[in-house]
């Protein structure tokens, strides 16, 4: 059983109810007519594929049917937090890296299923930087 926290239903639900929808926080260019082909192509086709922290768009397809965001570690598959549309992530690659340099690894507070997981995530990041 693998559970994901839906920020709209405010509870953990079975993974089967969710679908991933790719990279989150992709902004449509304000004025598409004024875009260069490269800008428009980047917006339309090109996606990040990071090793480590990734912010993704998911949908609670069999449930409230709302889209929301997940911060996920693509190395360990840890879900570090889930947050509603329009919100900004609290856990980012930068925030984890700075925690690491301060020697102050804290457990992410956003995703409930990740208690104790973010130190592993931070280790993964550290391994990457080393």
């Amino acid at each position, binding site marked *: 059983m693998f559970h994901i926290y839906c920020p*709209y239903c405010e509870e953990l639900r079975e993974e*089967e109810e969710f679908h991933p929808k790719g990279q989150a926080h992709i902004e449509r260019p304000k004025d598409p007519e004024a875009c260069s082909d490269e800008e428009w192509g980047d917006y339309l086709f090109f996606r990040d594929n990071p090793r480590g922290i990734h912010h993704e768009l998911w949908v609670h397809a069999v449930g*409230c049917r709302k889209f929301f965001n997940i911060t996920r570690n693509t190395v360990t598959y840890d879900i570090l937090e889930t947050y509603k549309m329009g919100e900004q992530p609290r856990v980012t690659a930068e925030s984890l890296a700075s925690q690491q340099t301060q020697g102050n690894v804290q457990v992410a507070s956003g995703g409930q299923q990740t208690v104790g997981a973010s130190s592993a995530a931070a280790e993964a990041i550290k391994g990457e930087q080393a």
Partner: protein
Amino acid sequence: MSDSTATRANVYDVRPASEVPAESPLAWSCHTSGRPSVSANSRVVLRERAMLGHLILRGGAIVLDEAVRGVLGFGLPARPNALSLSDDGERSIQWLSPDEWLVIVPGGEEFALEQRLREALGDAHYAIVNVGGGQTLLELEGDKARELLMKSTPYDVHPDAFPVGKGVTTVFAKSSLILRRPDEARWELVVRRSFADYLYRWLLDAGAEYAIGVEQ
């Protein structure tokens, strides 16, 4: 009601009194062909509450809550995955998503209710859709009803996780439905028309070991 609202929304009675025969999604499986009858051994009893009025309300919670309180006498559930019931338990409103609620009322009331809600809501930004033709309500009762649910859905149906007054949309038997618990004894399943035959047969199969019976 303003003229603009009236002309934009397609409001009509989908079940005019009697001339047009209407059938529940389980008309054939449950009501025409054979079904296991309730015996003394039955630990689970299934019954269909056919032809109820189902409405989907969409819009802002505050505006809808005010209108619903005025028309139905009780408000929207305040929390996600919650169910609010009228005093007699005949009418219910369930949270489906942050801007969506399912209202179930006795059959025949839904058209008048829709019109009164439209009047109360006026120019507010909202949508009301009569979905009564697309789904039906099944009830499970008996001491093994929870066991039957545990075989069918990954959702936790233990009373600690699923108290009375809760309702969720979830995965059920490789399909999906709305599962809700209006009181201690009963579980309600809101199933879609296209899944109704399949889920009905699934429930009979899963309930066979508890000598499931179907009440008319």
